[in-house]
């Protein structure tokens, strides 16, 4: 039996006390870890959203107003059935201040056999697209061929498999990284493929509300403007002849998201601070109260020849072990809750949410553990200091 093993023995002698302290520390760790991961996920969700949607304006058919929530298009990537004449694309391209404009065609299939949820098919023009391809190119080196599909990370089809859409079998050639939005459940193809799919849908008597040739429609036009021109270009688009379009400005949407993101982030931070303040008070009180009960024991150790430092060491090591255990449990619970429920959290918050990769997760876990293992013993420090300089003779004079 050596001094090194004494802290563990002390902890084991009072399992109830040890468990109670561990629970408090676990809460500390859980709140810090989960809170940090949440804040981070939201931030990277917004970041990926902004990066990906390089468009300053999105133009959708005016008829679809009411059905289209601009925030939803941006944040959730929810699409629908709405179409306008592709000639609008040329009109917009001609406007002064427009740097790029590219059309996208949306199709939603309820009959795909890949998943229980309806999948959205998004067709883009490889020649002009600037919002989807940079993102796809991270996963797909070669060109996207006719009838090839690229799937979002939450579509249940692996590369090499095929998805049937309106009777057409389309091979999955790549799978995208998570974005934390509804775009993760979408399927991407070229405009050419899309035209074929729309044709097939029509053949199957699916009501699509398209006038004319499916090859000549777009659902949305993504516009990149010269810096600072977004507002002016938006006004010009609305002044086109018979515009019948709605213009969504990216900035109004992302700034709205940023604002609510800041709100959520602030709430989370306040919660973390509250939990920590409470936990630190609780821990300090617990250690102090427990310290009183242990004065006699500590005096006994002093009598046997422990120095103040050694005695403080015993108390601090006890706190450290409790903290390590608590951190382990708290972080474990955090992982258990954050990873499987990322989707639920996202839909509950209604904000883009992108869980960090395992490296970042590990790093955050380590950081949390470190913080907890510093703070835990610090709270024990107060009582350890007091305990380590007792009036030994006075304590030993007290009857039991």
């Amino acid at each position, binding site marked *: *039996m*050596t001094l090194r093993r004494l802290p563990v023995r*002390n902890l084991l002698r009072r399992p109830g006390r040890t468990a109670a302290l561990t629970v408090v520390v676990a809460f500390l760790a859980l709140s810090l870890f989960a809170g940090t991961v949440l804040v981070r996920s939201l931030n990277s969700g917004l970041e990926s959203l902004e990066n990906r949607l390089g468009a300053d304006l999105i133009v959708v058919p005016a008829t679809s107003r009411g059905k289209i929530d601009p925030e939803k298009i941006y944040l959730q990537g929810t699409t629908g059935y709405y179409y306008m004449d592709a000639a609008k694309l040329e009109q917009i391209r001609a406007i002064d201040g427009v740097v790029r404009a590219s059309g996208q065609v949306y199709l939603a299939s309820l009959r795909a056999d890949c998943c229980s949820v309806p999948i959205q098919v998004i067709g883009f023009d490889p020649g002009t697209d600037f919002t989807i391809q940079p993102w796809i190119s991270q996963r797909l080196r070669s060109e996207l061929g006719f009838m090839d599909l690229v799937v979002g990370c939450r579509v249940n089809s692996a590369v090499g498999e095929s998805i049937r859409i309106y009777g057409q079998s389309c091979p999955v050639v790549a799978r995208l990284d998570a974005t934390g939005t509804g775009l993760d459940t979408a399927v991407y193809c070229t405009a050419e493929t899309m035209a074929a799919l729309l044709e097939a849908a029509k053949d199957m008597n699916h009501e699509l509300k398209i006038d004319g040739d499916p090859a000549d429609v777009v659902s949305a036009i993504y516009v990149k403007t010269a810096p600072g021109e977004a507002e002016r270009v938006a006004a010009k688009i609305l002044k086109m002849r018979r515009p019948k379009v709605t213009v969504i400005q990216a900035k109004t949407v992302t700034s709205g998201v940023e604002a609510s993101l800041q709100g959520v982030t602030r709430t989370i931070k306040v919660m973390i601070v509250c939990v920590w303040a409470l936990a630190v008070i609780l821990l300090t009180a617990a250690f102090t109260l427990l310290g009183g009960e242990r004065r006699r*024991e500590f*005096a*006994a150790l002093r009598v046997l*020849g*422990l120095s103040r430092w050694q005695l403080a060491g015993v108390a601090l090591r006890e706190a450290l072990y409790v903290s390590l255990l608590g951190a382990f449990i708290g972080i474990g619970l955090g992982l258990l809750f954050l990873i499987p429920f990322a989707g639920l959290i996202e839909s509950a918050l209604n904000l883009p949410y992108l869980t960090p990769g395992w490296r970042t997760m590990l790093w955050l876990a380590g950081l949390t553990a470190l913080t907890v293992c510093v703070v835990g013993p610090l709270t024990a420090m107060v009582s350890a200091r007091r305990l380590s300089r007792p009036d*030994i003779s006075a304590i*030993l004079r007290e009857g039991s």
Partner: protein
Amino acid sequence: MEIVASGAARRYPRPMGKASFFEAVRPVDLTLRGGEMTVLTGRSGSGKTTLLTMLAGLLKPSAGTVSLDGLDIYAMPDAELSRLRARRFAVVPQVAAPIMSLNVMENILFPAALAEKAPPVRRAEALMQSLDILSLRGAMPAELSGGELRRMAIVRALAAEPDFVFADEPTADLDDENTAVVFSLLREAAERGAAVLTVTHESDAYVYAHHVWQMSAGMLTQD
């Protein structure tokens, strides 16, 4: 090898008549030598425990010094004095002070571990045998009676063969038979070369002592 108290006194802040101090121990000169057993008696509250703890390096005198072979022990930094206590001193406190999370045997071997000495298992067992607690070696302190705890404390003090033994009423809860054993064990320790100080009310102890001192109202007188 000796501990010398010179003018060692201890006062406590407590209003006593005109003075605002209560002098628990008035300046005392006392020497504890290796190979000798010293017995200290006196009425309750006369300052025996206070003097013993000062000599044992646990209570700094408010005046005077306590030195070990010429070195003032209270001038040492805490770490050094603690190491000294761990390696060379052993105290049987007046009240039971076991380490609750260790069993009887571990308690007994703890001072040796602290002093980084080999665990004196044989010696501990022999001492436990003579005090009739060998069967309790695996028991936890919370399960022991007052007298058993006392005997454990005595074995713990003697097992590692310390140079100085300070026993404060080591026989307080013991029967006559065990009392006699304890005094003879303390005497043995002195014969082995240790300096032994025993505070006791038992006049039986005198026959084992080389010196007997009497304390009354904080003053030391030799019998």
